């Protein structure tokens, strides 16, 4: 088990998300950085969909009550195993009683703690992700709390230390043109693209709200339609909202743009007061970027396999 000593600001069990239930009003949930989870799972030889803990801000502390091969990925929240510094993109071994502690880091917001074979919580609607709004999935439907004991299978043999180079995070995010630019004032898409936006402290796993001194206010609404993580809504107040994994399934604000899937992960690290910019691309760029990301994980898995075969 992994015993929660301190849950920190916000920690929850997440996997690659709950898909296919949006028509029933069920959110996607899941890690905000799927590449970080895939990398962590690859390091440990887990299946891609194994569940991890997503740690927001840090200030979290956990005790391993059994031997465990684990990996940490995502942002650097200055983690330590007892007194030993840990780095994102590496896998390590913990003995019974070892304590893993995440402090915090001014440039990072979220880290991922993966364990061999993943956290063993029940699948609900085909996913282990916590739906924090609807309160199901994950560990008893809630973010982690002090004294929760999360089950996982004991690692039989300690792993060697191994790393995968983490993909860098950036605050320049590529977007696709949205369908409602023509009902909004003419230059709003251009303004969205030319301004540097500041992440508001009203941001969370549902969405990132962006601020700027000149707001893109308007009076348009659209007939509610399906929305999903990555969609950038522009409410009449003029502060764009980048929808993230816990977002609702339908929305009635005009959609000015959509963040490409490969780049949505960067929002996992953009804390309030950080800035970001958008860059317009076409669909082929979005598709290629996603393929490249997948290929990188696949290449790592192959290299790791070759390394293990040599032993």
């Amino acid at each position: 088990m992994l015993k929660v000593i301190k849950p920190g600001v916000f920690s929850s069990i997440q996997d690659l998300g709950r898909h296919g239930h949006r028509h029933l009003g069920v959110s996607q949930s899941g890690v905000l950085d799927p590449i970080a989870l895939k990398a962590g799972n690859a390091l440990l030889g887990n299946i891609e969909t194994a569940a991890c803990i997503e740690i927001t801000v840090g200030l979290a502390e956990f005790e391993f009550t059994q031997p465990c091969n684990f990996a940490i990925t995502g942002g650097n929240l200055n983690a330590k195993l007892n007194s030993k510094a840990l780095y994102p993109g590496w896998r390590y071994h913990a003995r019974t009683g070892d304590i893993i502690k995440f402090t915090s880091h001014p440039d990072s917001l979220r880290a991922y703690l993966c364990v061999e074979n993943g956290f063993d919580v029940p699948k609900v609607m085909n996913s282990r992700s916590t739906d924090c709004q609807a309160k199901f999935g994950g560990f008893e439907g809630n973010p982690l709390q002090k004294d929760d004991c999360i089950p996982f299978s004991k690692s039989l043999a300690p792993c060697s230390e191994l790393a995968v180079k983490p993909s860098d995070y950036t605050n320049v995010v590529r977007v696709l043109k949205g369908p409602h630019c023509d009902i909004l004032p003419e230059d709003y898409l251009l303004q969205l693209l030319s301004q540097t936006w500041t992440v508001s402290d009203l941001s969370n796993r549902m969405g990132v709200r962006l601020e700027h001194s000149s707001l893109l206010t308007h009076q348009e609404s659209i007939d509610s339609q399906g929305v999903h993580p990555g969609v950038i809504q522009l409410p009449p107040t003029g502060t764009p909202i980048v929808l993230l994994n816990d977002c609702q399934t339908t929305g009635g604000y005009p959609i000015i743009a959509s963040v490409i899937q490969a780049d949505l992960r960067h929002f996992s690290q953009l804390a309030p007061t950080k800035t970001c910019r958008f860059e317009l691309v076409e669909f082929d760029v979005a598709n290629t970027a996603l393929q490249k990301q997948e290929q990188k994980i696949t290449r790592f898995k192959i290299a790791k396999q070759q390394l293990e075969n040599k032993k």
Partner: protein
Amino acid sequence: MTCVQCYQLSEQALVLSIDGLITQEVRQKLFALAQTANNTNDFFDIVPANSSITFYLNDFTRTNYWLEQLITLWEKSEPEAFTPKTHLIDTFYGGEYGPDLNEVSELTGLNQKQVIELHASTEYQVGFLGFLPGFGYLESLPEQLRLPRKATPRAHVPTLSVAIAESLTAIYPSSSPGGWHLIGRCEQPLFDPYADSSSLLAPGDVVRFIPKEHR
């Protein structure tokens, strides 16, 4: 006259959107199209809304094919091809179950019995789900019952409350904040993530409320 367009919203999402008056016939055509598309294995989710459907593609190399094919399927779509499932929902109106029934009666100028009869005499269709898992937006409320949302939303709407606002009625599948007028409560669970069929209501389903005596 309606005008249809199909566009790509993001890598995996295609949207078929109808411009113009959404008649009952258009609505049934949309649900029939959603059903047809659901029978292919090309989509991992299909989300109908008021005047659009969002289709989530498994394989983005099929984008161009489906952008054209969805329009073709829309043109061929027959309203009669969609047979909705009907749910009869036993409902306790008023009293502790419907704390706003009195206010609704005052605001509409109808007596409580008339409000209940009117609400229960109508067949509603699930336009789409959203807001909470299993929360269906049920259309359309009789004109005489249409009221704006409450000026101050309740912090806590009890689970299974039957509520009305504007042209819609709904049942809260779980407790949440909410600004609709609560006129009754039902007993049938609306959403259970642990059940095989998690949501009682699906887009296009028809709902009728059956008034029950308080126990």
